[in-house]
């Protein structure tokens, strides 16, 4: 088992147990795809029922289909490797150990939608991976898995370049990512139009998460039925989870979709948890009484970040940490997120000092709802999630505190 540094600074084993990615025959998916029509490739992905692994959970087949249908001779496939959500490190593991599979997925996507160019948008902190990734790309070019007439299929040309991210969390949002690639400030665009219609440089663009692309290659290799056979009806297949926090065996795990939180905690040795933060800073805080709930698009959706919160954790402190993150990371474009995150953070400080009235707390919760509804992008829309779920589930703990030290006022 190799070991790498995770975001919070602790040492974690990269993977715990074998990943299915290791059992797929190299380039089997690409070879199968090269024999199929574009429509059949997309049909295969659609039949698998796979939804995006980046967090938003948009059906990948539908996304590819929209881009394939768009009328333009220039299209792009972008691999979103910006992995900035606190508590996620699965994409880093995939890129370190299974980058061939990711590039294979991108190439398949390129064939499916009619793109000739792929771009990997790599998180700035992962620049140490770049030489490795460039070497893999170079090898794939010599193997005729990239370049002109891939695998001898006439007109199947595709190549991949790597571009470094600019360090902001919001640049992981697909339209901000595109702005950043175009040399603008990384700020989310208005949607619609969506990238599948008006994306990079105004051309139809598919943006997929690293993991989504790797699974796409597996689906083409093993067939949609295999993938669909795993997980639940609405959440098919396997998923990687980045598990950190107060548990015995943190790391990257592969589970079928639909696993319950308590099962997961058993696997990682975190049964005594007080709560679990699912989906990173932008996710929801699930209290112990709800551990029977499942990780699935129809229940609790997640991009894969699971932070286990042990019995000793101060929930207000957790809310405060996350809000500080959003105050820092909001791009500042739109009012609800730019100013709302600050008000919520001030609210947490009031709570810590025991100076927040019930009335004002209700106002802040309503503000949280406004932020969820009216913010321009997913960052602002999800920034109040942790605060709202903590206020809801841990009201007894957070009301009536006079913790001046924690509030930094002493």
């Amino acid at each position, binding site marked *: 088992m190799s070991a790498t540094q995770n975001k919070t600074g602790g040492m974690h084993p990269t993977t715990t147990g074998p990943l299915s990615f290791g059992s797929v025959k190299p380039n089997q998916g690409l070879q199968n795809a090269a024999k199929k029509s574009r429509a059949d490739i997309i049909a295969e992905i659609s039949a698998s029922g796979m939804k995006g692994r980046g967090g938003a959970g948009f059906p990948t087949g539908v996304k590819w289909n929209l881009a394939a249908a768009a009328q333009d001779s220039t299209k792009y496939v972008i691999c979103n490797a910006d992995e900035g959500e606190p508590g996620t490190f699965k994409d880093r593991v995939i890129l370190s150990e299974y980058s061939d599979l990711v590039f294979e997925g991108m190439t398949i996507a390129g064939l499916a939608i009619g793109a000739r160019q792929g771009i990997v948008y790599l998180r700035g902190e992962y620049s140490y991976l770049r030489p490795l990734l460039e070497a893999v790309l170079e090898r794939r070019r010599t193997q005729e898995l990239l370049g002109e007439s891939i695998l001898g299929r006439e007109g199947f040309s595709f190549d991949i370049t790597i571009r470094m991210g600019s360090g902001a969390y919001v640049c992981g949002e697909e339209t901000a990512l595109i*702005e950043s690639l175009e040399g603008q400030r990384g700020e989310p665009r208005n949607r*619609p139009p969506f990238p599948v219609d008006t994306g990079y440089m105004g051309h139809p663009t598919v943006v997929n998460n690293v993991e989504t692309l790797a699974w796409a290659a597996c689906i083409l290799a093993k067939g949609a039925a295999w993938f669909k056979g795993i997980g639940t009806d609405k959440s098919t297949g396997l998923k990687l989870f980045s598990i950190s926090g107060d548990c015995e065996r943190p790391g990257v795990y592969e589970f079928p979709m639909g696993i319950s939180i308590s099962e997961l905690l058993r696997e990682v040795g975190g049964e005594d948890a007080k709560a679990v933060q699912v989906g990173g800073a932008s996710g929801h805080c699930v209290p112990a009484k709800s551990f029977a709930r499942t990780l699935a698009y129809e229940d609790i959706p997640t991009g894969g970040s699971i932070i286990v919160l042990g019995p000793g954790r101060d929930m207000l402190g957790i809310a405060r940490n996350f809000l500080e993150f959003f105050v820092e990371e909001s791009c*500042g474009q739109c009012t609800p997120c730019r100013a709302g995150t600050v*008000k919520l953070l001030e609210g947490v400080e009031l709570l810590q000092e025991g100076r927040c009235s019930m009335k004002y707390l209700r106002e802040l919760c309503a503000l949280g709802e406004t932020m969820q*509804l009216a913010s321009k992008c997913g960052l602002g829309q999800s920034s109040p999630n942790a605060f709202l779920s903590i206020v809801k589930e841990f009201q007894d703990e957070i009301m009536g505190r006079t913790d001046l030290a924690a509030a930094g006022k002493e």
Partner: protein
Amino acid sequence: MSESTTFGKDVSRAPVSQRGHRVGPVDDSQAIGGQISIEMDGKTLKVPIGTTILEASKELGLRIPTLCHHEDLCVAGVCRMCVVEVEGQRTLQAACAYPITQPIKVKTHSRKVRQARRHILDLILANHYGECYACNRNNNCELQTLAKEYGVDFFRFGHPTEPMFELDTSSHSVVRDMNKCVLCRRCIRTCIDFQEVGVLEVQGRGAESKVVTFMDKPLAEVVCINCGQCINRCPTGALRANDPTDDVWAAIDDPTKHVVMQTAPSPRAGIGECFGLPPGRALTFEMNTALRQCGFDKVFDTNFTADLTIIEEGTELLLRLKKALVDKQPVAIPQFTSCSPGWVKYIEHFYPEYLAHLSSAKSPQQMFGALIKTYYAHLNKIDPKDIVCVALMPCSAKKFECNRPEMCDSGYKDIDYGLTTRELGKMISEAGINLPDLPKSDFDDPFGTATGSGVIFGATGGVMEAALRTVIELVTGKKVENFFDHAEIIPLRGFEGIRYAEIPVKEVGPVPGILKHLFEDWSWLKGATLKVAVAHGTAYAKKVMDDIRAGGKFSECHFIEFMACPGGCLGGGGQPIPTSPAIRAARAQAIYSEDRAYSVRKSHENPAVVKVYNEFLTDGPCGHLSHKLLHTHYTPRGKFIA
């Protein structure tokens, strides 16, 4: 689409997503011929694909509040005031940024929508330092209006009690008070996208974000051209013009001072808007009465020097052409107009290598000042040091222009103060006058008689049209009406960003007396074709300049009119707020109908102009004295900031 609504769309530098939305075909039976049925608050409507929810709501007569949206600018979708509920969508959608591509059902004021808007307002107010009664946008502020509309009666999330930023008063033209900034970014979009100057940008993220100049330098030290278009688009009091009204009042109140006012053509077409009149009603003569009641000693018409500008600039053009065609000497052609100080500063910054093309003739405002403190002072036996020259302009760049160090050719500061239309509106109100109610009165002599040509200076294409009216008559010896009906050179009118015309010189006449000292005959012009162009808005000026640099069609022109402001001066940065394509069109209408009403419509027929050349500038147009008083030079500035 009419020209006025497509203005600026073809030169946009905005990010792809902020330009018009590209929309694919929809396969829905309800969408016949690109029309989509939608339902909004229970009312139904068919709209063309790509119409935004906001546009559709206007058609239905519904009001959706906006703050970052502006009809002149590309979409931003950042303030989120305009959110509405679209059935089937998890989140609320920004009406200004949502193109309709499918049949949708919209609710514009559901509980969620009202709550969100109120919260957004409260969040803005929590970061807005300002007191309405001490603010120049009081009663004309979009934020204040929204606060009233949404019944803000307390500050839910607090309100700053201390200023957070220092004022930037470095510029003669624009004052920036970021304490009142709501980060709608209209100024940024105005500057970079509408005007393509690019002085303003956002710096910092999240709550730290702030609208800044390059390296947060004072506005006076960056490439700002002072056009004031950003002021005109700012929804709040965060941007305003540098206001000298206190000094003007002080001059009026000082009995030793002789305070002379000159009024440019565009303010009279706009000032009614300051008094609640619909755009497009000229109040020229009511304004004269008001100015006298305010205490100005004389009220003159800038059109007089506009006519003078035409003579000087037209003569300069003929001289350049002669030098090229007869003397075969190198000379900078095309000649560029120089009456828009925003444009002058633009070319000084961005195309300094083309400064030789700029007509050396001063703008009408500055010619006026130079004549008042010399000719007029002498005629009336007033010591020029006791004269205070005030210029009423639609423009904030004129404030910078009158403070240029070279503008002191009379031996004094030629123009002491530049006032905007808005500032005069305020002075008139302060004097307790309701402008539209006043009786009419005429301009004072000797600079009262103006021509229609001077009036149309206010509209894009007007300088060129006026110049051509004069040049055609001077060269052919015939009435311009022989060539153009009613002397209206229609190809030069309108709001298209760039216009081009060719005028063949089929016949020539004798050289008129006024030019005898410069030309023997016109034979060298016979058979020539005069190529002219007009560009307004610096975004379009840039297009023309880049074409010239590349040796394109505009490099073959003889004369090009440039105006920094879209629409020309009538859309200037000192005009009443708001300004929109429709408002500019209405003001243009007012200007062109005033032109028609004048009996003398050509600059060289203006008796006051003829008199000045007979009595004072006796060595004629472009002669020695006129060169000293009426012409100037320019400063290559470059676009790199130290």
